[in-house]
């Protein structure tokens, strides 16, 4: 058995020069320190993304993306197809855990200042993937064509439409018309299963190659030359990664089985928005903010102000490697920490308020 395997290995090696790849992977070391636990969340996000790809393709085999059939086809998946309910439930839960894991990953990279030179590109691709994850969530939410999704999409796209000058064309582009209709559904379906996955895969490829080339970022004052303080990525750290993936898979299975994702009522363009309507939790803090901002602040519309503020905060976050010159030079930058802590607290408070108010 072992002989056969090594024969197979050398057969492939002769053709694709695996040796280089193994060396490439073997070069990376993972620093061991008190914040090492944060190194795991990138891997967890990756794992959840892989699950999304697999379950997504499975759902695609039965899903029909049209106004008349979308809701019914999901009903069919969860009631007639064997284990259909499980696959759908896993896809929905994993989407949420994916956003959560990516969020934790982003914030840990932020607080560890791992975005600083030479990792700016790694950070930017990561940021873009994070925004894309939100896009996946938003576009996927509409696909079941239920009441909540219908109004969530109306509100979400209308928010985009509020942006001065470019808002109106964007709104038309997103909705494929003035209103949310079957045409919007087709469009979102296209984004969700073709446009986003394509772009995301390219970004992910760049991101992973860079992580592999640049190695893990080390915290300040870390001495990588002490042998006990590092661990080879391949295979030692990877095995730990895999163990964690198994745990995540179990959590996911428990959530999916015991809290199956609901389908709700079919969307009706001529029904009032249902009471208690809420967006997905990761949009909640923005939603709640929009609720609190009054209709007019001085002479500007409340929403416009809110959206511009969030746009500004997002840009600030995305471009942190470029304005945080201090960290790049190895100095402490307290401002970055304060901003980050403020963002975390803000998100937590407004999310809870949105949930219980």
């Amino acid at each position, binding site marked *: 058995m072992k002989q056969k395997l090594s024969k197979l290995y050398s057969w492939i090696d002769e053709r694709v020069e695996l040796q280089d790849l193994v060396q490439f992977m073997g070069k990376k070391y993972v620093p061991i320190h008190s914040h090492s636990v944060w190194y795991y969340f990138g891997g967890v996000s990756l794992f959840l993304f892989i699950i999304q790809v697999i379950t997504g393709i499975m759902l695609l085999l039965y899903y029909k993306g049209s106004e008349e059939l979308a809701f019914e086809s999901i009903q069919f998946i969860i009631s007639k197809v064997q284990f259909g309910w499980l696959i759908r439930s896993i896809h929905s839960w994993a989407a949420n855990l994916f956003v959560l894991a990516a969020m934790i990953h982003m914030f840990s990279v932020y607080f560890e200042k791992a975005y600083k030179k030479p990792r700016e590109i790694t950070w930017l691709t990561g940021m873009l993937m994070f925004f894309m994850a939100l896009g996946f969530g938003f576009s996927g939410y509409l696909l079941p064509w239920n009441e909540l999704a219908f*109004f969530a999409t*109306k*509100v979400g796209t*209308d*928010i985009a439409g*509020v942006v001065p000058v470019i808002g109106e*064309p964007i709104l*038309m*582009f997103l*909705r*494929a*018309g003035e*209103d949310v209709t079957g*045409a919007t559904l087709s469009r979102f379906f296209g984004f969700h299963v073709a446009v986003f996955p394509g772009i995301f895969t390219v970004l992910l490829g760049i991101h992973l190659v860079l992580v592999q080339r640049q190695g893990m970022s080390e915290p300040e004052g870390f001495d990588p030359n002490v042998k006990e303080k590092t661990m080879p990525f391949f295979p030692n750290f990877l095995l730990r990664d895999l163990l964690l993936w198994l745990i995540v898979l179990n959590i996911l299975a428990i959530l999916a089985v015991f809290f199956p994702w609901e389908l709700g009522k079919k969307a009706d*363009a*001529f*029904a*009032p*928005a*249902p*009471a*208690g*309507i809420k967006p997905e939790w990761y949009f909640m803090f923005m*939603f709640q903010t*929009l*609720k609190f*901002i*009054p*209709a*007019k602040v001085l002479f500007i*519309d*409340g*929403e416009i102000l809110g959206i511009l503020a969030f746009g500004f905060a997002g840009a600030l976050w995305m471009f942190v490697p470029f304005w945080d010159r201090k960290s790049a030079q190895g100095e402490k930058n307290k401002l970055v920490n304060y901003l980050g802590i403020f963002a975390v607290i803000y998100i937590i408070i407004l999310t809870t308020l949105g949930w219980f108010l």
Partner: protein
Amino acid sequence: MQEQPQPTEQPRRSFLKYVLTGGLVAWAGSVLYPILAYLKPPIQPEVEVSSVKAGKLADIPKESGTIIKFGSKPVILVRSAKDELRAFDATCTHLDCTVQYNKDKGMLWCACHNGTYDLTGRNVGGPPPRPLEEYRVITQGEEVLISKKS
């Protein structure tokens, strides 16, 4: 001898540069334009509805709001406690949700961000920035008709 070709070479080179960049821009434009134009949804001619039947007066309960299809838009027909009939565009002026009649408050209410309007369509609470557009209600005998105000 060596210096001679310089002045003629320079304009020729910059001329080439203009031609090339110009060509490149034109080429990029001719590729991008159809793509952008394709992405913009065509405007579907909508059947102009000027008035719709909302049903028989006897079928509309007091203190209620019913959503009526006005072409492709929802319109809410309200019969108040004082037996007034009024109709409004049911699309919330805040972020496009559809409003409903709230009996407890005796107001129009939007569930999305808790916006409220009084029974004349004025935005009185929450985030909506503008009042709801009012429609005209005509009763012809038993029949209730809704039409756009012009």
